[in-house]
């Protein structure tokens, strides 16, 4: 059986020392091993940005796509091969700015994949511009006087869009993050895991220390029930979204693949016969005769 070391490759990440994304990489590797996967069972599909490079740093089938479009790629992969564990990954700019249209519809569609967002509230690879998750007043190269746009409350938005698995992690808490990813993969539907993954170079406000001071673990809230959507929404609003843990899960809702009438969820679509029978072909022709 594979260990987390089997999910390592020889590529040295080009992330800055101290980048939160290292922990996300390690958590995915650990979660994959804990789930009993072999490297060839896993496909990591990523977007563009510092965090988008993650698909190249894990020993698994990796696809580093285009900016904002990791989700449609990942959904296509899963539809073609239901046997693969598909993880989509990228940054907050990738998923919540250029790719927001795909994010909200992937949530609605509920195809069984896991989406991990490395949320650092800033654009890193382009060297420090505001992101859709930057706080109001956040100063960057593109907002020298401070951001005058409201940050998107992404977990609340996901709940509103009908998400069936919503969780939030923090790069400093490798253990919790690993288990959230495991839960996300096990969830039969679309799982969104937003990870506070600090940028040590361009975000001097939302630092590791800042998160340690401001984040609340949902497991510390007495009686928190992640199956109650109203409570989830209320809790997020009360804590301005600064919570970690499993926020909401709906185990009743079937995944997209399960809902497609007659769709074979056991045999991957890629293994279906490409050739159609002569009889079937004649049948198709009669429609036009």
């Amino acid at each position, binding site marked *: 059986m594979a260990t987390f070391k089997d999910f390592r490759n020889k590529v040295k990440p080009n992330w800055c020392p101290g980048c939160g994304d290292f922990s996300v990489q390690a958590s995915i590797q650990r979660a994959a091993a804990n789930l009993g996967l072999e490297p*060839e069972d896993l496909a990591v599909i990523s977007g563009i940005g510092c965090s988008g490079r993650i698909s190249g740093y894990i020993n698994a089938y990796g696809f580093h796509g285009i900016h904002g479009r990791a989700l449609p790629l990942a959904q*296509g992969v899963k539809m073609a091969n239901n046997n693969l564990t598909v993880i989509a990954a990228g940054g907050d700019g990738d998923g919540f700015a250029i790719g927001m249209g795909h994010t909200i519809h992937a949530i609605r569609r509920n195809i069984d994949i896991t989406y991990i967002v490395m949320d650092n509230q800033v654009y890193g690879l382009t060297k420090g511009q505001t992101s859709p998750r930057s706080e109001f007043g956040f100063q960057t190269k593109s907002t020298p006087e401070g951001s005058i746009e409201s940050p998107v409350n992404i977990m609340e938005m996901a709940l509103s869009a009908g998400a069936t698995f919503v969780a939030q992690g923090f790069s400093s808490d490798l253990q919790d993050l690993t288990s959230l990813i495991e839960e996300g993969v096990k969830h039969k539907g679309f799982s969104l895991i937003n990870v506070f993954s600090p940028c040590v170079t361009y975000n001097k406000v939302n630092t590791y220390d800042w998160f340690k001071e401001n984040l609340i673990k949902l497991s510390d809230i007495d009686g928190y029930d992640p199956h109650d959507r109203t409570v989830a929404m209320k809790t997020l609003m009360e804590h301005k979204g600064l919570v970690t843990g499993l926020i909401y899960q709906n185990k009743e809702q079937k995944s997209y693949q399960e809902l*497609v009438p007659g769709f074979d969820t056991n045999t991957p679509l890629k293994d279906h016969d*490409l*050739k159609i029978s002569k009889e*079937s072909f004649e049948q198709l022709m009669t429609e*036009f005769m």
Partner: protein
Amino acid sequence: MINQLSWKVGGQQGEGIESTGEIFATALNRLGYYLYGYRHFSSRIKGGHTNNKIRVSTNQVRTIQDDLDILVAFDQETIDVNVHELHDKGIVLADAKFKPSIPEGSSVQLIAVPFSDIARELGTSLMKNMVAVGASSAILGLNTDAFREVVEQTFGKKGEKIVEMNMKAIGEGANYVREHHPDALNMMELAEADGKKRLFMIGNDAISMGFIAGGCRFMSAYPITPASEIMEYMIKHLPDYGGTVIQTEDEMAAATMAIGSNYAGVRAITASAGPGLSLMMESIGLAGMTETPLVIVDTQRGGPSTGLPTKQEQSDLMAMIYGTHGEIPKIVMAPSTVEEAFYDAVEALNYAEEYQCPVILLSDLQLSLGKQTVEPLDYDRIEIRRGKLLGDEDLPELEKGEYFKRYEVTEDGISTRLLPGTKNGIFHVTGVEHDETGKPSENPDNRKKQMDKRLKKIHHLPERFPTPIHTNEKHEEPDVLLVGYLSTRGAIEEAMERLETDGYKVNHAHIRLIHPFPGDELRRLVEKARQVVVVEHNHTGQLASLIKMNIGFGDKMKHILKYDGTPFLPGEIYKECKGLL
């Protein structure tokens, strides 16, 4: 007795004009006539003039006739808008209910038939369309029994009574004309057809059927005119073969989802028109860079921007060849008939996998929505070729943490491809320039090697492609070579016949493989011709530019251009060409 005629039915959109034409045409198809149908419609659901023009012939026809023999009108607007198309001896069959009139000075014959009244007496005025079908059949000298099968299929679900009522409506329509206008009966009696079984289908149906026969099992798409029929066909039929369609949030998702699916081993496609293709450019680049198979249909319509969404144009050509930033291997195919559209769709899937690159299956509104008679399609011509795709073979174990050389530099530029899930086959894919294992690399030497590898893949396609140019080479030294692509084939062929009758020596070349361009073959044809006239539906002469870019000969090249949204009529090409010679 005549061998061919054109019949048009018109009225308000939403009034059943389309189904009237459908029933009329299907019955004639089953009698063995060759048909061509073209709809005039607008971007609205109800209201507004709409018409369906159907050409009937005992020989193959692939375009609209210049003029019109019979116009069936459900309102005065239909007469006013279309009467000029009728020739001198044409007939207007109109519902007596709206007190039809023919504009002054027109010599056409008006036959007012109480379509609505007859229908109402039989049960419901909804059947006025069937009365019109019956009246038409009388003029064509057809037995109304010819309609029974179609009527049963169309109305069978509603019960025997409804079927009989509709048959009666057809019969009464025919009787009325026979009784009241016996003089009209001998004017347009159609010669008997051969009774052979053939298909009558639009290009989009042929493309869709080709995809299913060619092993496509997944489609991701966003609705758009005039491509939506492809998605609708696939939604209807893919589930029978285990496949499915996802209607995506936009065209960017449609194209990338199809790329994801192809990467994971399913033949996946998307289809759109100009505005959608503009959004897909980024994805096309990704497929080119990552050497992932991808088939996209572009059903061209009037551009730019929203342009003329329901009208004919061929102005995406350059964008389809050169679109996406940077340089990628890409194949652009252009079927010229509905039949070719079927076989091209199958082959597009094969080429995408063999050459591991995006394939654009180009169409235009007239080819996509125009309905043609097609000889029965040949099952034995359907081949599935997956190129250098490895199956489940045992691969040697990779050194720990190393990748499979998915982008190995090879002599033909095509590398072994395998699918995610394969043991010992892990490789990386990225839109960033990469080395043979797919790892990002900015090394200049590697960059050059990978660029050369990718771009040389498709060089030899023109030599392999079965008919890169459809040619009609009647003459060794023609006065003129007419060149076109896609749906203009029928109109060019008919114009050519007329020019020949006038004594001109005319050859015809219809380009079937747009990119990589079959320059050698076209050069041979162009060299022999005294003049070259390029016929195309756009303002700037894109096909002519493409030819000049590839083989030169600008000095003997002339244009016939049309960009008013309506398809070329044979007579227009004939006249314009004559003026140029």
